[in-house]
């Protein structure tokens, strides 16, 4: 009577501190340039090596330009941060997919596409969207830099066991509705703090029908409702995706792995601390109107009235609408926008580009829109080219950029100017997230495509 989460967690307990947290063994660790330098300095200060170097993989993604990657990074501070990562990789003997490496890309895109991410594992990274990897039936969660140092030095972290929650999606999705809409719908219903303290398992018919890319999108956004992470039991879809990938087990080892992976599901009589059920067929394409991912609504809906908001939340609600330049009760369909961002670890995979391209094929980009199309990795970009999607995009007036986190957190030059509206497939619409004063409307790749060709918020 164990949940999937219990099974994986229990298999990774090294010891439990009396009255304290669990010492959890970590199978896979991903690292990027922004949250790791202080951890490596910590190792140096203590005179330590990396305990299990083959279990850590490094990439540069957060702070890199998305054009001219063949030239040295212009911004001196960014260059130093990326160089520091390369130096740390060298000195500590770690695998590093740096700029100009054919496997470089966003940390949560390259883990899965290289088969580094596998079912039944514990996976961490100094980035909250590590929850993405849960799509494979792994316990994957974001950690802070002190914890990065713990993993580097001991391959363990200290964690309090979270509670478990199951989110069931019954029924079938409507045409034109994707995992991004499911996620925005769920966070809208449960709020941004609704799953704090929980680890979520997604289940139900609509989940089983999702592709791996879509499952990753959904698990990716678990953190936006406060969850420690989200996971989905592995099935044929998972195995088909993984087979033959670089780090995936091969031959006899694959068969052994499969035998184990097939045990990875919640028992029929497993009890969750909390359980909610949604009807997938009721979900419409979603957008956000505010400054947290829980402030969502169907694309044809209207912003709540002030009287709908509880007393304690009023200040934040009004502040948020003021920042966005919206009024309570306003409808957003038809509203002109300025930028479109397709990319990030939420929606920067091949399927997202296929969806976007399908929609814009034979149409033209609206003149008032600046569009940034940023593949999640070089492998994604090469796949786009192999399928000829780049040609279609070009004909429609779009240009493909080079991979990286880009406007998702706007640490590089891809910043939306103050006051401008951006329809973004990324994960956060926080104040200033896409640049100081930038106004973000989160949406699916399809809604982004419709906005890019119509120049306004439009149902696809």
């Amino acid at each position, binding site marked *: 009577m164990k949940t999937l989460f219990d099974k994986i967690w229990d298999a990774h307990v090294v010891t439990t501190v009396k*009255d304290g*947290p669990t010492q959890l063994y970590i199978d896979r660790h991903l690292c990027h340039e*922004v949250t790791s330098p202080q951890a490596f*300095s910590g190792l140096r200060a203590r005179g330590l090596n990396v305990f299990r170097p083959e279990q850590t993989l490094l990439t540069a993604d957060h702070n890199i330009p998305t054009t001219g990657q063949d030239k040295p990074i212009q911004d001196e501070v960014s260059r130093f941060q990326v160089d520091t990562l390369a130096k740390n990789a060298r000195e500590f003997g770690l695998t590093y997919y740096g700029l100009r490496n054919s496997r470089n890309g966003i940390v949560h895109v390259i883990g899965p596409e290289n088969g580094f991410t596998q079912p039944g594992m514990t996976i961490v990274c100094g980035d909250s969207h590590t929850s993405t990897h849960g799509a494979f039936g792994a316990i994957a969660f974001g950690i802070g830099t002190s914890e990065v140092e713990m993993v580097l030095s001991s391959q363990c972290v200290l964690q309090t066991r979270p509670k478990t929650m199951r989110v069931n999606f019954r029924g079938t999705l409507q045409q034109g509705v994707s995992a991004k809409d499911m996620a925005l719908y769920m966070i809208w219903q449960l709020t941004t703090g609704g799953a704090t303290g929980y680890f979520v398992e997604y289940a139900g018919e609509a989940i089983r029908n999702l592709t791996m890319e879509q499952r990753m999108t959904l698990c990716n956004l678990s953190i936006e409702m406060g969850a420690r992470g989200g996971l989905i039991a592995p099935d044929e879809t998972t195995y088909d995706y993984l087979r033959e990938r670089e780090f995936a087990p091969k031959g006899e080892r694959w068969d052994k792995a499969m035998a184990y992976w097939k045990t990875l599901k919640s028992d029929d009589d497993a009890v969750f601390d909390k359980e909610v059920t949604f009807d997938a067929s009721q979900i419409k394409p979603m957008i956000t109107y505010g400054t947290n991912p829980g402030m969502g609504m169907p694309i044809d809906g209207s912003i709540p009235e002030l009287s709908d908001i509880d007393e304690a939340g009023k200040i934040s609600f009004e502040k948020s609408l003021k920042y966005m330049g919206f009024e309570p009760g306003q409808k957003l369909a038809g509203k002109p926008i300025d930028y479109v961002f397709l990319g990030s670890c939420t929606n920067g995979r091949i399927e997202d580009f296929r969806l976007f391209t399908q929609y814009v094929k034979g149409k033209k980009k609206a003149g008032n829109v600046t569009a940034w199309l940023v593949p999640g990795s070089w492998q994604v970009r090469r796949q786009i080219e192999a399928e000829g999607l780049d040609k279609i995009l070009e004909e429609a007036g779009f240009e493909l950029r080079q991979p990286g986190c880009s406007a998702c957190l706007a*640490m590089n030059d891809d910043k939306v100017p103050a006051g401008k509206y951006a329809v973004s497939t990324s994960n956060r619409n926080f104040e200033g997230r896409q640049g100081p004063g930038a106004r973000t409307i989160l949406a699916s790749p399809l809604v982004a495509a419709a906005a890019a060709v119509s120049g306004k918020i439009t149902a696809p």
Partner: protein
Amino acid sequence: MDTLKDMEKFKTLTSTYVPLPIENVDTDQIIPARFLKATTREGFGDNLFADWRYEKSGEPKTDFVLNNPTYSGEILVAGKNFGSGSSREHAAWAIAGYGFKVVVSSFFADIFRNNALNNGLLPVIVSEAFLTGLFENPPHATLTVNLEEQFIRNNENGKTESFDINPYKKECLLKGLDDIDFLLSNRDKIEEYEKSRPFVY
């Protein structure tokens, strides 16, 4: 040195506090991403709440509480769901670097709470009613936070609440101890575990 070794021991603190009655303060507000390019832990306090605190020109915004000389102290009191968003520990470094030792709210995001504790910054969870009381206090009111006995007191009206903290973390804070020391002392157990892992294929 760049490790937690210089983490101060924490026992009890009485201080005025800075009120920030906003809900869902996320890590992008605490420390915007463009300040994450540093490779050390120092200097983040200067950019704490940068976009709320400074004009584009770099001038302090007079209507933001950190720029209001009426409010100061080593305690930050914030609205519900503080620290949601990214896992960046820089948020905790910025708050600690600014000089806060305690953050009070009625609800914290998980990762932020962990990060705070790993940096000797004490997150104290209070009830909504207690929090509202703090926002209604006149300026210069003080709070007492006693970690050893796990209580917080609004010295303006004497209202006291006990707060929860994991006993292990409490011990770490009281003694100025660090998780890495603990893990390193456990390496033989880790190696033993590796040998017995159920699914090495």
